[in-house]
């Protein structure tokens, strides 16, 4: 069964790695409009994490490829091995 989620309902959810690290809160999604695919999660980093280990955009927000997403429910679980390191 194909489950559907509404884009805006994801915004504000916590983003957590599969090793239990709280990464931050989802603030936006980057979408490739031709193919209709979510490319990146744009995450506002949690105060407790060191952002130098992550790929950041010009506003200091963490970019996580959608391919690294393991599960989407009350929180978004990210496969830590799939996060590009800066």
């Amino acid at each position, binding site marked *: 069964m194909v489950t*559907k*989620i*509404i*884009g805006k309902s994801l915004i504000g959810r916590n983003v957590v790695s599969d090793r239990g690290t709280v990464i931050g809160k989802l603030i936006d999604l*980057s*979408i490739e409009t031709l193919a209709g695919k*979510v490319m990146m999660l744009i995450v506002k980093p949690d105060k407790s994490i060191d952002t130098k280990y992550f790929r950041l955009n010009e506003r200091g927000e963490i970019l996580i490829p*959608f*391919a690294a997403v393991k599960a*989407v429910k009350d929180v978004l679980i990210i496969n830590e091995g799939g996060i590009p390191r800066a």
Partner: protein
Amino acid sequence: MVSRLTKMSGLEVFTEGGKHVGVLEDVSIDPETGKVLGIILSKLDSDFSKKIGAEGKKGVIVPYKAIKSIGDIVLLRDLIYEPPKKS
């Protein structure tokens, strides 16, 4: 082209024929693959909602394959603007 959900939300939606249809409110996503399944339109033009039989509805979901392009506006393929055939 790469856009952001927060930037896409609020874009005006037109058909290829230049008719105004409504406003892009949100997108529907398959959480397994990240594929955008459809877009959710709101503030539907009364003319459009009459033709697709969605009068009085707050919004409709348009499948992603009906989208021609997304830029400063959203352009829909005209095929979805055909009135439903009476059987």
